[in-house]
């Protein structure tokens, strides 16, 4: 069986498992929906008060907001195994069993769980995108749809990469480090607004270190047909989502380094 088919089986089993508790699934999805809608109510309130943010309208910000939130919802749903890696695999010694199986550890961890409650955040993000499409005049052709799709895929890859890095740290720290939340949850929050409202050092951090700008700011500039006020070339805004996949590739390389240095806790 190839990796993809195996992953399909993993996810089918995970979905069946979660559907054994439909009440719990509904409750947690609704809660996630409520929590994320509340954040957008905050954005709406600020626009109601101030009208614009550094020249950007509510509809334009909703475009950044919706795309990055969908990307994060996807990453959050598939990365559960990496998210709980420290406490559930390293601390317990369960990772030893993964190493014995003739498949890559990354594939097995991806297959650990497909978290369906992410549908709550996803629903909110789609709603925000619909609002954006309603408020902003964009000629949605194949090019724009492709850009939006690649921004979502690149963003999901980037967040997955961040979670892989967080899990890699657990090889040394055993417990998961919550510090990574600053980059994942904090990264989504930062990516919900156009990069050019931020200070220079923060913009550079979000372009070159944790390239969240590459999966939201630059592709949305290309969709809106805007130029980057800081002089990023036009071709870069079109291909920038690929940076998310480069980030994921680099993260998996670091992950393999971590696996080679793994010493079982012996429990």
């Amino acid at each position, binding site marked *: 069986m190839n990796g993809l088919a195996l992953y399909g089986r993993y996810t089918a089993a995970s979905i069946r498992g979660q559907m054994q508790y439909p009440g*719990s699934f509904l409750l947690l999805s609704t809660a996630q929906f409520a*929590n994320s809608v509340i954040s957008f109510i905050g954005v709406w*309130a600020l626009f*109601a008060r101030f009208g614009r943010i550094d020249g950007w309208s509510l509809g334009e910000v909703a475009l950044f907001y919706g795309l990055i939130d969908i990307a994060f919802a996807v990453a959050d749903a598939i990365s559960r195994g990496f998210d709980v890696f420290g406490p559930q695999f390293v601390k317990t010694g369960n990772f030893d069993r993964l190493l014995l199986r003739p498949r890559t550890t990354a594939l097995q961890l991806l297959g650990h769980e497909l978290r369906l409650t992410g549908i709550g955040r996803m629903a909110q993000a789609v709603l925000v995108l619909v609002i954006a499409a309603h408020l902003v005049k964009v000629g949605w052709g194949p090019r724009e749809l492709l850009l939006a799709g690649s921004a979502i895929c690149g963003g999901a890859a980037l967040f997955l990469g961040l979670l892989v890095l967080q899990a890699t740290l657990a090889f040394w720290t055993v417990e998961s480090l919550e510090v990574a939340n600053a980059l994942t949850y904090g990264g989504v929050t930062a990516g919900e607004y156009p990069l050019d409202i931020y200070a220079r050092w923060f913009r550079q951090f979000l372009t070159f270190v944790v390239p969240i700008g590459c999966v939201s700011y630059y592709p949305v500039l290309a969709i809106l047909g805007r130029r980057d006020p800081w002089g990023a070339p036009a071709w870069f805004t079109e291909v920038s989502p690929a940076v998310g996949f480069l980030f994921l590739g680099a993260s998996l390389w670091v992950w393999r380094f971590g696996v080679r240095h793994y010493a079982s806790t012996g429990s």
Partner: protein
Amino acid sequence: MEAALAVPKSRLMAPYLAVLRARFLLVLQYRAAAAAGFATQAWFGVVSIMVLAGFYHGAAHPPLSLAQAIGYVWLGQGLLVLLPWNADPEVSEMVVSGAVVYERLRPLDTYFYWYVRALAWTLARVLPRAVPMFVLAGPVLSLAGFGAWGLPPPAGFAAFALFAASIGLTLLLSATMTLLINVVVVASQTSRGANSLAPAIVNLFSGLIVPLPLFPAWAHLFLFLQPFAGLSDIPFRIYVGQLSGAGAFAGIAIQAFWVVALAVLGRRRLNQAMDRLRVQGG
């Protein structure tokens, strides 16, 4: 038996104070969690401030100046764990394991006992996060030349005194809300529902997502009177000087009202839930 239970009046508070002290010292041990929380909160503080500054460009007469809004954000990030985000985790465990029945055997008022535990838990988590955050956002940013982006000193001596009183009430109010969440956990036998829905309400109505004065004017009276404003909006506005004089006293009175009202409600509901408690054995 009667004689053994007759405790001198002065010793009546002793078990509650012992619980307060023990739990405070226990939770204070989790330094790594505090450090992680600190880093995350600093990040969110920086992002929120830059976003707010972006909105303030060219704004005419907002009800909160940018400097005040920045102070409001830093106070919110520093005091984040002062808010009632979820049920007391130990109470949730007790409910799931069934150990909650032992709480009925103690010669203590369960509500007050859990209340003191919630106070200690909150206080021990707030202090190691708030102190470094205020040092960073206040003197450190100021010395580094970023004073305009930092936490300003209180608006005056009166503002500081009123803020201290108000934040004390915030602590009491937060514990009454934690207890209400505990009641839901006891009644529903699981912490999942209450813990997942509480943050949305707290986040919005306390002013953490957007400072409440920045909401549209038609919502202001409602936002001022509802119980969650007392969790952060009222003390923060007093601190930055946006709420002063009679307004500040009104805010503190609203906080005090909700502390009493929610404590009475919570105690009655907890006793009802406890009376209906079924032990499944095992």
